[in-house]
């Protein structure tokens, strides 16, 4: 029965405009362009964790068949951006720059050969000698070294210690292991020098413009001399928000061998070389009155970073504004370790922070004997507790109601471990999620062609959510024309400026630009038509009448005064029903319902998929994902899909994605806000809370593996 309902849902609404290319294998990702004379690069990684390289024996590799070059810091051409950088300032790893080893697996050489097999074989022949130094990779052992990266990382209002005086208190530590993005597409780049000062790359990136300017800066050439192509990106989730060392290695390799070089990371490289969500320790102290009003919250966080780059998420920031509470203090710190740099991963900050806060709220609800939804409603923030500003749009109460009805919340027992079904313990859990709804500057052109087709162009990337599909929907509505006559071009640095696809900003930012461009274009047509225009212009006919080949407008869209007036967020609530086997500790998800309060839904089919997708990554966070470092050697030991578990089909039930779907016109003219982050944020706590409801066992260190429940 359920299947039929879900079938109906998953087919509702227009399909993806680029879907046909994806189901036929015609969509080309970065490693899939066949350039004449292609060479292949394979990286060699450090086998120690900290120290210096004393020698690298490259002779065997250099004489192996097909090898064109072996490049290490001993013979690497100068990278101008590396040399001009202040060595005292921390920053991304400078590949092949010096003899220092700062993490295990750090690339120390690249072998370039005329085939992938030959490059891979020769890379295995490269042997380095090192002076190893004592390394530190364990977060817990080094927590005392935690420091705040900047002043904003520490916050307080009211009397931070007030929680201690409350009638009911919870004080607990929550641990999140390191998680790896692991998009299915391996990070890949094809680099080609078109002239002594001109570079083209086909690169996996979430922002072609940022990649373009970074490459230009590194290689000391004008920005316009760098072309970045990234038409299809096979997932990224934050891992492609910056130029990583392997991208620089490929560009260096291409320069040395004077051929295009394709460099595809291995799955093992993906675990060490393109960032991860930092392993984070958190402590929450929370106090409430007997009737469930929050008195005070103290939320501290400390996460891993590397020794060469400062990186700290803001996990504790959620405690500043998720609930109305007068006395709050939060801090986000980092611990420098001999590991690769972490980076933004889907829901950065709140994904980690809500696991702690929303678990603690759940613990509080049992101590108070108040239903967890009721507890949240009693502390509902009508205005932003941090800034005091009104919210641009918040309909979270609707979200609680929709989700509770859908999951069957009324069947939940307030007594943990009291409900069984066919020998399995049954439990329900809830958690909220929140993420800032920002609108970034976008320049976009809209061109009506002579044949009546509309072409929209801007340099945004699409890592999978369906940007083009949603943008075409906005254009079709604004221009009042069929979607199949609209093309949305993205993923090329030659197009007008757009932000990176990150932080759930694209529908709001680019969608607004599409709306503005189409509105202006339509207005131009009405002026051509004259006499106040017509309701539904025949654009091709008007162009022909006026002897025009095309009509183009450019829109510059950005946030306005509303950022001073409102606090702007997207919200989610996740509801989970679990079954836990009391003998084996196995957790099965029986039902998952996710409700998003993120303004107007532009593209129902892809919106639903994005919510489901984020929820599934959140389920992975809750139940299985954990990158493990063997501290004796400083090496990530589960850098493959057999050992680093991500959810597979058998782990996942049907998931309901519901939308409040109330436009937020305070934030932008299309009333839409992002949902990429909120789809994941909160899910881990929802699962943990459901497991507690089922078993009476509170797991505060993720993932919730069976051994923690038996």
């Amino acid at each position, binding site marked *: 029965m359920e299947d039929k309902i879900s079938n109906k849902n998953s087919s509702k609404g227009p399909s993806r405009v680029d*879907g046909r290319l994806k*189901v036929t294998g015609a969509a080309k990702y970065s490693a899939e362009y066949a350039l004449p004379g292609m060479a292949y690069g394979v990286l060699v990684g450090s086998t120690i964790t900290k120290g210096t390289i004393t020698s690298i024996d490259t002779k065997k590799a250099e004489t192996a*068949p097909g090898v064109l070059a072996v490049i290490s810091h001993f013979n690497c051409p100068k990278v101008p951006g590396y040399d001009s950088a202040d060595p005292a300032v921390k920053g991304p790893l400078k590949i092949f720059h010096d003899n220092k080893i700062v993490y295990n697996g750090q690339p120390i050489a690249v072998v370039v050969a005329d085939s992938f*097999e030959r490059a891979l074989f020769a890379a295995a022949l490269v042997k380095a000698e090192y002076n190893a130094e004592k390394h530190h990779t364990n977060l817990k052992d080094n927590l005392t070294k935690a420091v705040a990266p900047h002043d904003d990382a520490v916050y307080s209002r009211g009397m931070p210690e007030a929680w201690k005086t409350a009638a009911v208190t919870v004080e607990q530590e929550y641990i999140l292991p390191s998680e790896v993005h692991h998009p*299915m597409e*391996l990070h890949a780049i094809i680099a080609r020098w078109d002239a002594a000062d001109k570079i083209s790359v086909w690169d996996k990136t979430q922002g072609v413009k940022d990649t373009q300017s970074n490459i230009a800066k590194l290689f000391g050439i004008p920005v316009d001399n760098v072309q970045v192509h990234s038409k299809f990106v096979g997932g990224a989730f934050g891992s492609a928000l910056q130029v990583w060392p392997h991208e620089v290695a490929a560009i260096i390799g291409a320069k040395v061998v004077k051929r295009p070089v394709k460099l595809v990371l291995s799955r093992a490289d993906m675990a060490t070389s393109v960032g991860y969500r930092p392993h984070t320790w958190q402590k929450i102290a929370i106090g409430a009155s007997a009737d469930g009003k929050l008195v005070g919250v103290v939320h501290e966080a400390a996460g891993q970073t590397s020794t060469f780059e400062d990186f700290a998420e803001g996990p504790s920031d959620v405690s500043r504004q998720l609930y109305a509470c007068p006395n709050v203090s939060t801090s986000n710190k980092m611990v420098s370790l001999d590991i690769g740099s972490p980076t933004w991963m889907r829901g950065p900050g709140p994904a980690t922070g809500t696991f702690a806060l929303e678990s603690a709220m759940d613990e509080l609800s049992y101590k108070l004997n108040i239903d967890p939804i009721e507890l949240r409603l009693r502390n509902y923030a009508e205005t932003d507790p941090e800034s005091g500003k009104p919210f641009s749009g918040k309909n979270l109460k609707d979200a609680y109601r929709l989700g509770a009805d859908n999951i069957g919340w009324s069947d939940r027992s307030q007594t943990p471990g009291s409900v069984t079904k066919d020998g399995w313990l049954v439990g329900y859990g809830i958690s909220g999620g929140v993420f800032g709804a920002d609108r970034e500057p976008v320049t976009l052109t809209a061109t009506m062609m002579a044949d009546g087709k509309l072409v929209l162009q801007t340099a945004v990337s699409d890592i999978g959510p369906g940007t083009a599909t949603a943008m075409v929907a906005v254009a079709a509505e604004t221009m009042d024309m069929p979607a199949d006559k609209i093309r949305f071009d993205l993923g090329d640095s030659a197009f007008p400026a757009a932000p990176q696809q990150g932080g759930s900003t694209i529908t709001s930012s680019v969608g607004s630009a599409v709306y503005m461009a189409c509105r202006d274009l339509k207005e131009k047509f009405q002026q051509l038509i004259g006499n106040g225009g017509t309701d539904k212009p025949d654009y091709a006919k008007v162009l022909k009448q006026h002897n025009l080949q095309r009509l183009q407008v450019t829109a510059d869209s950005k946030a306005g005064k509303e950022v001073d007036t409102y606090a702007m967020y997207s919200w989610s609530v996740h509801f989970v029903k679990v079954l836990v086997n009391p003998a084996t500790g196995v957790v099965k998800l029986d039902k998952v319902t996710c409700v998003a309060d993120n303004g107007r839904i532009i593209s129902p089919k892809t919106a639903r998929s994005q919510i489901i997708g984020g929820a599934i990554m959140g389920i992975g966070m809750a139940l299985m994902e954990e990158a493990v470092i063997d501290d004796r050697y400083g090496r990530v030991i589960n850098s493959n899909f057999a050992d680093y578990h991500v959810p597979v089909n058998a782990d996942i039930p049907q998931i309901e994605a519901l939308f409040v779907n109330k436009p937020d016109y305070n934030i932008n003219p299309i009333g839409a806000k992002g949902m990429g982050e909120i789809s994941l944020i909160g899910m881990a706590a929802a699962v943990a809370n459901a497991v507690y409801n089922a078993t009476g066992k509170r797991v505060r260190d993720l993932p919730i593996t069976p051994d923690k429940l038996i």
Partner: protein
Amino acid sequence: MEDDKSLLKPQQGLHPEDNSRRNFLKQSTLLTAVALTPVAAVKAAESHMDEKIAEAFEKLPLKMEVNGVAKSLQVEPRATLLDILREQLDLTGTKKGCDHGQCGACTVHVDGHRVNSCLTLGIMVNGKKITTIEGLAKGDDLHPMQEAFLKHDGFQCGYCTPGQIMSAVACIREGHANSEMEIREYMSGNICRCGAYPNIVNAIQEVKEGGIAV
């Protein structure tokens, strides 16, 4: 790494570190394969002639039918079917997601059965029929499974999609698509990090229930 070395104890001349293929060729010809190795190769190996001559004997002929088209190639024995499809035949619809047989993105059909092409050496499919995602549609007419994935949004980024679709077709052919649970189980070799699993299940169920032969 020191530990690794002591454990391996490579045989003289047979370990790749031990001065590469010339010695390997020489050893193997002398020990076992004199009758099978062309005299020229033995001479080339013994006289330390250029690697290029030696390597000429290291490629093997591979004949296979890919999407109904006969292919005749010379491939290194170590080249995987996946890399041959992607790098030599420019059939990039088949994806590399792990190269370890752990993610399913490289799934193709070999004589109608689903296999991980990253775990299949090219020379293992000599004389066989390969179907990749590019060979599933009939001209402009999508295969019913492709239509169903499109309709039910069985993907986001699209990278695992060709492997999912090839697996899904095989899943029905194998008779493993009789319930949602069975589909989930038999599709668990194909990872989707974007998390399109429920939609993938819906797509497969619709094709299965539609009763069209796949």
